[in-house]
């Protein structure tokens, strides 16, 4: 009695409010940290002007891009602009930083969505079946394969995949975007590691769920094995799985830098690494904020999903 009472005390709205405040604090902390730390990586001037450029033109460049002011002044100006949702201009691309980032993010989002949907479905089905007969042939094969999958460096796989599937076999385009075929290699390469990882979690979590008391009840009721796995145990086993899926998805949303670089995929990870190497601070900051915000939204979604899946969780 008392337990349910406590669990239901704060309403969903206060929960959302609290989460929003916590995330806002994190976001501000993140902006401060990225702003100042990224400036430690040196003056971008040298990168943008030819090596032979004169002192005067360097000075000019700094003046135009506001790099001459003391850092706190630059920061105050940046935060002021930010309040008006102005993320600053990209030095490199001569366009609003947010435009560069959102353009990349659109691609990354699609890539992450497609990959994670595939990973989720496959990992859950294979992992559940493996957990049902622990130590069986299927379990051993699935476990071993998933472990190998989680163990290989992805850039290595990516290049080998291009050499084998695109050049030697000619099945799929090497890289780039355009048709459905272009998605196959990047998605496959990105698929491998999360799949291996999530499969392991599904398996572990399902083993626990399948040994719990309610499964016994279901067997005593006469429920057959398949519904026991996919109806009774799975929904209970999903909670820890969702957490890991969230972590992996966050990793993809942050940009799959390696895969995007190799496959010439114009995602936010590529935008970010280019901006970092080119000291295009406005773009770095915008990219960090956009992805952090997306991850915040995703985490919120996961929390809501928790509550949907498990009626005991109430906010």
């Amino acid at each position: 009695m008392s337990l349910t009472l406590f669990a239901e005390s704060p309403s969903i709205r206060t929960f959302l409010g609290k989460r929003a405040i916590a995330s806002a604090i994190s976001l501000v902390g993140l902006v401060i940290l990225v702003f100042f730390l990224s400036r430690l990586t040196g003056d971008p001037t040298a990168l943008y002007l030819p090596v032979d450029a004169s002192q005067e033109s360097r000075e000019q460049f700094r003046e135009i891009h506001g790099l001459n002011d003391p850092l706190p002044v630059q920061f105050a100006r940046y935060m002021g602009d930010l309040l008006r949702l102005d993320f600053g201009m990209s030095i490199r691309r001569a366009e609003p930083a947010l435009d560069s980032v959102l353009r990349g993010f659109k691609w990354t989002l699609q890539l992450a969505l497609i990959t994670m949907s595939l990973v989720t479905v496959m990992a859950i089905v294979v992992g559940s079946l493996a957990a049902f007969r622990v130590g069986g042939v299927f379990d051993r094969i699935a476990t071993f394969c998933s472990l190998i999958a989680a163990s290989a460096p992805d850039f290595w796989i990516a290049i080998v995949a291009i050499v084998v599937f695109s050049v030697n076999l000619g099945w799929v385009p090497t890289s780039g975007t355009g048709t459905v075929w272009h998605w196959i290699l990047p998605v496959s390469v990105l698929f491998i590691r999360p799949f291996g990882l999530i499969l392991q979690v599904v398996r572990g979590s399902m083993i626990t769920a399948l040994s719990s008391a309610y499964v016994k009840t279901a067997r005593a009721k006469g429920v057959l094995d398949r519904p026991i796995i996919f109806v009774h145990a799975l929904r209970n086993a999903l909670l820890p799985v969702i957490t890991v899926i969230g972590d992996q998805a966050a990793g993809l949303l942050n940009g799959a830098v390696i895969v995007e670089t190799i496959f010439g995929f114009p995602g936010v990870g590529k935008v970010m690494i280019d901006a970092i190497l080119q000291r295009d601070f406005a773009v770095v900051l915008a990219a960090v904020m956009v992805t952090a915000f997306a991850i915040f939204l995703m985490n919120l979604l996961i929390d809501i999903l928790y509550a949907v899946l498990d009626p005991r969780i109430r906010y």
Partner: protein
Amino acid sequence: MQKMFTLVLGSVFAAVTMSSAMAADSAVTIVLSEELDIVDPCEASRSNVGRVVLQNIAETITELNPAEGLKPRLADSWEDKGNGTWQFKLHPGVKFSDGTDFTAEDVAHSLKRIKSEALTCEIGAKFFGGMDISSTIVDDLTIDITADPAQPILPLLLSTVTIMPAESPMDSYVDTPIGTGPYIFDEYARGQHIKLSANGDYWGDKPAVDAATYVFRSDSAVRAAMVAAGEADIAPNIALQDAVDKGMDYSYPNSETVYLRLDHNTAPLNDIRVRKALNHAVDREAFVGTILADGTLLATGMTPPSTIGYNHSLKPYTYDPEQAKALLGEAEADGVPVDTEITLIGRTNNFGNVLETMEALLAMFQDAGFNMNLKMVEVAEWLEHYSKPFAEDRGPEIVEAQHDNANGDPVFSMFFKYASEGLQAGVQDTTLDDMIAASTALTGDDRKASWEETFKYIHEDLVADVMLFHMVGFSRVNSRLDFTPSIRTNSELQLSQIGFK
């Protein structure tokens, strides 16, 4: 099983038909190594921008042909009016792709724009630093251009200046460049591709290539794979180890020179014997055909051998570790601190196999008895070591650098690399300063002879740097094209020069 097989087969078929469709008829696809952040023609001196824009979209009034020297392009002729002023007669009847006429006003505007303070265009900074350029419009098709101080090679310098319409803004980059060239800039889908199509109203000959698509892949293996798979037609600049197909891969001197810049202001590098020892310690020939491509030339000067005034009589220092040790011993006997740890600084991704090259160099120096360590840094940090002002408390540093001069004259290199005021100069030598100043002011054969003297002085008397190699570039070209890459391919890729077999 049957179904599966059909599926796989279907996908293979689809892939094949698709890729052949992509490389159809008279359109070409070119895969570049990095995405273009800016497409403004005033940045065309940057190689990836140049490969899209230079002479395809925006033309110059003069044009350097590696075989024939300086040729007219938008200008029909020019003459030296003295006092640093040159008069150019422009080609009549030329139109920009937006329909406006090309006049002297456009040239004047373009010259102003490359020096615009709000833009800091690379062409202005790179080729016109330290001089004032002014122009006087004589009539629609005649213009006087004056450089202060006077530039004997002003027409050559103008081969770098892209001409844009007079309406082009002075304070912001354009994202749809307009020019007089044989192609029109159609579309830039950021992160994906750039599309050009033939300009129907082009004033010159109609080119064979109708349309071009540029895509971007940073990995050399992928670029090479794309041409091999028929997804692209030209991959300029692929790595040596990817250039394995004799039928598709072309090598050409790419106007890049790799050298080690020595800092003459710090001991022990301020001692000529130490610098000589460094030069003798390197087995240059061992690199060629191994880590570096066959056809790589051993360098004795900063510019490619095709540059006027290059001193062909100079010989590279021999590989002689014993002599290097002896020289070091001599220096040590005179109290030179040869044991000081020297930092060898390399720039990551500077050229293919830079890492292996630097590792090999390090091992050679260490074998010769140098106390040295290697530091590979990325470009931003590298520049802090390479360009002045140098850090006060630096130790002795050797900076690896690759210098590009495709413009035919050493003037584009000498001041920056060797004059005391030069931003990347490790030497400070008044004799050399005078020689550079004198050569810059001369023309014709005098200029050539004077430059040759200068090269000799740097190489033999000063032993200023450790010159290493004139590099070779590789491009992969689809065999259906009639196109041979040349030294210019490093900075431009004229679609009008491409034919079909």
